[in-house]
């Protein structure tokens, strides 16, 4: 079993982090680091792109790889440029649910449609946490949040299902409770040549937990009780939602350059 000491030394900087007590952000950081350590990829080849929000601060500045902390919702678009620019880079995107599926929804759709070889972790805490806990596209109907004090008049959608429908090569869902499975899924994402999308239900004790009367630990237990690896269960499904083989954009572009006769610039 990998030692935390070694992971910390090789992959982590700038600690203590600003994350709240019990926040799942650090757990995602831990799982990403362990996944890379157990993969063939070298950390020098990794670029972690993030948008704006607490989730965006997971890789930036805490992860000791090349990091690109961008504008709200646009991480996948920036990451597309990085990957097509240099296909040998392993590009990870870490983005909150508001960043990724709210303002960034369009880029999420087209990243999936293009099946571009990115590894996207959507850190889903069901809110816009950093700005105080406003309603997000993943917030349940009727839920009371900072901007839905009378209950959420909107309804949520399932980002993972949409990404699956848009054509992503690899779609999965886990929670921070499922650390071992999450690590394996990130490894699979790294190995997959296509758009990997892992929705990670992640606890935000400060903005979500507090109003539900739960701390971080209790939220982890809630994840355990309310998820299931059985598709037929009524509980939230965790596991692989989709694995398909479709043309991957970077490969297609490079093949065309090859055919057009250009040596790479």
């Amino acid at each position, binding site marked *: 079993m990998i030692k935390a000491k070694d992971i910390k030394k090789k992959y982590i900087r700038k600690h203590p982090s600003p994350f709240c007590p019990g926040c799942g952000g650090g757990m995602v950081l831990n799982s990403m680091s362990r996944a890379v350590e157990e993969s063939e990829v070298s950390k020098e080849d990794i670029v972690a792109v993030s948008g704006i929000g607490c989730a965006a601060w997971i890789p930036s*500045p805490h992860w000791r790889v090349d990091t*690109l902390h961008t504008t709200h919702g646009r991480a996948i678009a920036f990451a597309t*440029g990085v990957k097509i620019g240099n296909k040998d880079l392993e590009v990870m995107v870490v983005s909150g649910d508001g960043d990724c599926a709210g303002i960034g929804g*369009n880029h999420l759709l087209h990243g999936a449609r293009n099946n571009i070889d990115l590894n996207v972790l959507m850190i889903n805490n069901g809110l816009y946490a950093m700005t105080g806990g406003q309603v997000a596209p993943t917030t349940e109907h009727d839920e009371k949040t900072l901007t839905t004090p009378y209950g959420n008049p909107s309804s949520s959608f399932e980002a993972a299902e949409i990404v699956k429908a848009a054509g992503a090569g690899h779609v999965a869902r886990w929670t921070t409770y499922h650390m071992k499975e999450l690590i394996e899924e990130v490894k699979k994402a790294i190995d997959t040549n296509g758009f990997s999308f892992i929705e990670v239900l992640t606890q935000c004790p400060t903005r979500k937990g507090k109003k539900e009367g739960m701390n971080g630990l209790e939220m982890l237990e809630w994840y355990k009780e309310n998820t299931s690896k059985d598709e037929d269960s009524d509980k939230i499904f965790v596991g692989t939602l989709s694995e398909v083989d479709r043309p991957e954009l970077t490969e297609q572009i490079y093949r065309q350059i090859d055919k057009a006769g250009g040596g790479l610039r």
Partner: protein
Amino acid sequence: MKEPGEYFMEGNIACAEGSLRAGCGFYAGYPITPASEVMNHLSKELPKVGGRFVQMEDEIASIASIIGASWTGLKSMTATSGPGFSLMQENLGYAVMTETPCVIVNVQRAGPSTGQATKPGTGDVMQARFGSQGDYEIIALSPNSGQEMFDFTIRSFNLAEKYRTPVILLADAGVGHMRERVKIRSEVETIDRRRPEGDETEYFDTDRKDHVPPMPDFGDGEELLITGSTHLGDGTRDTSSFEAQDRLVRRLVSKIEDNREEIEDWEEMDVEDADLTVVSYGSMSRPARGAVKKAREEGLDVGFFRPKVMWPSPERRLREIGNNSEVLLAELSLRGYRMEVERAVPSENLHIYDRLNSLPTIDMIYDKIKEVVK
């Protein structure tokens, strides 16, 4: 990529060819009139020289991806018009803040809003300077011919690389769609970004006089901390201290301000003894220059001044001219460059010839010159 020679070429194509000559390695864009030809041409030609081309889902994604690609070591460009340029402002500011070289072509059209897509206008000049939020300086060039579409695109790349900044090529539908003789030279000077040397470890701060830090690539093992938040020299985010904000933002502004003499560029004709100087830029400057020549032929002491670099502003020279002669600003816009010229020229000396939708004839401007000179 066209072989060296002389061509009868559309401005937008000349711009695309200029980018190929400059060494562009990545283009991402979105269709928009009157700029689409730049992208259409590059979709075919860029792969032939080993560059990556991709059409993105919108203009925001286009500028985002050229910034991402720039950090893989590639010279990158996108082209758009007013509506797309408006969408790009946030990420333009991001490129300024992260000191990412890239070229944004704005083939301006008649606005505001959807306006008249196929008609020229130059109402975006101030937006090029102030479009994104916060304090910053920008470099923007204004070509007025097919040749300049080619040459200024190359210069835009060079300035972007030299100063680690986004550079805007402010063209307009007139210049973009006009066909003229364009000479493509075999020898073209290109500049590449300065990569870290020896013991240089800071990529987001410097004590150098030119204020430009070195720039590594992704994959160099530098564990880069690139962020649009205010940051320290090593890229660490600092969203609270006075020192970090003061040092970073002042340096970013100084980077353009202190280097302006190397960046600025203009054309002058017969200004020294002029009673009236016509100031113009972009496609409007063509009939404007013609009108000035005609005025001289008719014995009027009229000069001509054309900024080739709109930003940083040629205010120093404009002020000298404005204090020595009357000025007639001729532009294809009501507010494009007007307030900048008003800043430099005493109001009693300033006259305006503004026109929308289409270029005037030489005679129309000449008539205005005569009226002002009276």
